[in-house]
């Protein structure tokens, strides 16, 4: 009940965040503007609209997770609302989990809204929607669950600005983890290679969650793949939340 109470409150709080609406506005502009690119590439317009709609859902979802997520705990300390809450007979992990669930509930609303808007727009343009399009949306949400967990971890450790920079960097590199593995030959035998290889294994491979190409081209994706990627994401998410709870457990507020 405590976790739910905190989650409900976080949802109510986050939905009032102005950053959310600014980002949603730009997401809508990007989705509706995608038709312009479709005109340039004749005969490809629906494909491009689908691709851009999914990319916009992913990028703006990530930005919301970062901007709202990294300030989530910090704001409570800064505004001193945390004092009376943590003085209640509750465990600190309940607070972290409640904050996390509140934000991912908000992201669920955001993702579903963007998916609905995109779907209606594609249908209006005379396109059709396959299952892969919705599976792509599902995996975007899986990715947001993971990034939000990382943002909450950073929020319990550092300031919103530094946290946002770190999470943003991980989100960018997470989409291109192979750069850490496929190093040029001059790295051979250096300690930098060992470190970058370690980074390759630690940073989640976020490109696994990207089905935009498949959805745009109507390529079928196996259910097993989707389950595997969701499980992969959830494993990272759980680990990050455990770390966030441990970091917050000993934190002086």
């Amino acid at each position, binding site marked *: 009940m405590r976790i739910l*109470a905190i989650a409900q*409150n976080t949802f109510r709080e986050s939905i*009032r965040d102005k950053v959310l609406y600014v980002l949603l506005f730009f997401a809508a502009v990007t989705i509706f503007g995608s038709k312009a690119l479709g005109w340039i590439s004749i005969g490809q317009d629906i494909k491009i609209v689908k691709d851009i709609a999914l990319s916009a859902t992913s990028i703006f979802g990530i930005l919301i997770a970062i901007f709202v997520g990294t300030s989530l705990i910090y704001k409570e300390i800064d505004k*001193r609302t945390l004092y009376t809450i943590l003085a209640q*007979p509750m465990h600190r992990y309940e607070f972290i989990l409640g904050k996390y669930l509140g934000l991912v509930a908000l992201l669920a609303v955001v993702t579903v809204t963007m998916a609905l808007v995109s779907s209606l727009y594609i249908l209006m343009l005379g396109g059709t929607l396959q299952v892969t399009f919705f599976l792509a949306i599902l995996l975007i949400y899986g990715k947001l669950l993971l990034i939000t967990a990382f943002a909450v971890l950073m929020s319990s450790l550092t300031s919103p600005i530094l946290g946002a920079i770190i999470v943003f960097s991980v989100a960018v590199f997470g989409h291109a983890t192979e750069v850490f593995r496929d190093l040029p030959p001059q790295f051979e035998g250096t300690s930098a290679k060992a470190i970058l290889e370690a980074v390759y294994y630690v940073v989640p491979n976020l490109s696994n969650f990207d089905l935009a190409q498949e959805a745009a081209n109507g390529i079928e994706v196996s259910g097993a793949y989707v389950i595997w990627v969701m499980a992969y994401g959830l494993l990272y998410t759980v680990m990050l939340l455990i770390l966030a709870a441990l970091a917050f457990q000993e934190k*002086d*507020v």
Partner: protein
Amino acid sequence: MSAIVTKNLSKIYRELGKASVKSLDGLDLTIEKNEVYGFLGRNGAGKTTTIKLLCGLLKPTSGEATVFGESVRTPQARRLIGYLPEQPYFYEYLTPKETIDFYGKLQKLSPAERAHQWDKLSELLDLRDIANQRLKGFSKGMRQRIGFAVALVGNPPLLILDEPMSGLDPIGRRMIRDLIMRCRDEKKTIFFSSHVMSDVEQICDRVSIMVKGKLTHRGRIDQLLAQKTKAVEVIAVGLSEELRTALGGIAQSHRPLDEQDIFNFADEGEANDAVQRIQQGGGRIVQFSPIRESLEDFFLRQQEPTVEEVV
């Protein structure tokens, strides 16, 4: 079992790249049940640090603290504590009713219990008229009332209040004072920090004084103040001009009032000598009264720099 026990409780703030700050240094404190205990000190004396340690918001660097035998690091201890921070802040988009309900949920109270808490607390703290207004824009006094109501959710036996009267107008202070007295009548233990001495003197059974993170004095107010007489006031009549001048030179102060002469002497020895001289000189003593220190005098004396500090 005592309500609060701290043993060698210390807190050092360490921040990367900054000098560490010892905010609390080896605090040993015992507060009995059903006591109203004042915790005094200037800003930065370690009062809020102690309170935050007791409420589990800070981790002690060393030492331990318990409330009713439970370690303050456990949620069980926090079930027994109602905490009012200095300048309490709550979610601005909630109403007072929603706020009380939220804290009731955090205490796992049933919907019926939460409704009961609202009925009781809204009446006690006069929140009915503002029940459904958002907290945004509420005055300090209104926030303090809500903070007090939040501290009372779940009817905890111990209240820990950080500067509950700071920044309030006389009516607000009176209300908080009355609430503390009412809680004491309900057999609650109240531990509160303050630097408003008159309030402390009126409502506390015992006090502790903190100076720079260390506890310097503790005890019953009457016992602490009985230790020192600030001055002795002697009122006499029928003094010769010569004697008046002589005594005026010895006394801390002298002022004539109608036919009377009012002298203040630094201690009883000087006053007794003066009385003897007045009687020998044909004068008459109208009043001889030692002036005890007020808590404020006592408190201020503790803040004076020591010889080492001056050097």
